[in-house]
């Protein structure tokens, strides 16, 4: 599947490939975009919560603390500059993820067992 129309850019698309007809003007004082990940409590994964602009990593962490953890939402923060995140493209989704759809034998519910052992 070949999609010709691309006019978005998000953190995960390199600057020179942002493409399309929306041109962003970057001035020297535009701080880069950072993606913010928060661990809500010990033992859980960091989860993506949003993004913000900051001059550097230190400032991104400080701002993330103010914006995303005002109500005890977190015990740890990761920040990653958005341009360093690589992602799959929507048009690849079929090719990548559809093959899993017909492999239902990978799920425990596929196997019918007698009641006596069904807790297995």
């Amino acid at each position, binding site marked *: 599947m070949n999609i010709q129309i691309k006019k978005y850019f998000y953190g995960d698309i390199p600057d020179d490939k942002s493409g399309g007809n929306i041109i962003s003007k970057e001035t020297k*004082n535009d701080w880069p975009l950072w993606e913010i990940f928060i661990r809500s409590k010990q033992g859980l994964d960091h989860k993506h919560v*949003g993004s913000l602009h900051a*001059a550097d990593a230190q400032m991104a962490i400080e701002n993330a603390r103010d*914006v995303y953890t005002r109500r005890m939402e977190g015990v740890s923060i990761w920040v990653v500059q958005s341009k360093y995140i690589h992602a799959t493209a929507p048009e690849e989704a079929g090719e990548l993820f559809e093959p899993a759809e017909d492999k239902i034998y990978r799920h425990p519910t596929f196997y019918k067992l007698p009641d006596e052992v069904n807790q297995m």
Partner: protein
Amino acid sequence: MTVQDLEKIFLQKIENEIKIEPRDWMPDAYRKTNIRQISQHAHSEIVGMLPEGNWITRAPTLKRKAILLAKVQDEAGHGLYLYSATETLGITREETINDLHSGRAKYSSIFNYPTLTWADIGAIGWLVDGAAIMNQVMLTRTSYGPYARAMVRICKEESFHQRQGFEILLVLSRGSKEQKEMCQDAINRWWWPALMMFGPHDKESTHSDQSMKWKIKRKSNDELRQNFVDMIAEQIKVLGMKLPDEHLQWNEEKKHYDFGEINWEEFWNVVKGNGPCNKQRLDARRKAWEEGEWVREAAATYAEKRNKRQAAA
């Protein structure tokens, strides 16, 4: 793949309640509508800090001051969530903010009214945030993924805003004669502007129709306004106050409250920039932006220096 095919896939997703994400193909008009709506929403949060900020130094007690500070800080956070969502559509933060400062982009007209007494802070929380919540709860199900996610976060935080507002009025409504009068006066002044927040009647709204088809909006302006009136007309009984509308009356047949007609001339006047505080609000935003220039420059220079030092080490 042709544009027609892409549009078909897009509409199918909308039909099947699959969210649209930033990198998915979407029609230009869908993108533009979202940029307009989400950025206006962001501007409203930011400008909305101004009328309340007016009372931070004059809050009656330390407790009230701490609460108001927390609330205003929330609004700044809400502005940020929404600006970030706008950016995913391919417009920069700076462009968005320039549009506000040039007057091209709108923000909710409610913030062009002044906060004259402490009771206004209560009325804003109860009525203005109450009206905003009606909209925002609906928008947690909007079709554009980043907007919906921002709304979920905002709604979680916003319910404290409405409750603290009602509580301020509740205390006043049980106070001295002067406090009761102050409470009623604030309700009188904020009621109609709060109703205007839902926008023009459905038959006149230019954006609603397409937005409903694309599931950006899920309820019409009039529907949301009616829900709001029904809710407030009941809640005000607890305060023992009155809404300033002689036509307000329970309609047993419709199972809704009937209410009077909004002064649309006033509405359009404020939208067009002639409200009591339009100029003051925009001037304050521009001033904050211009006077913050050196901070932005210094932070960028400092970051650059630190990077160089780290690279050298």
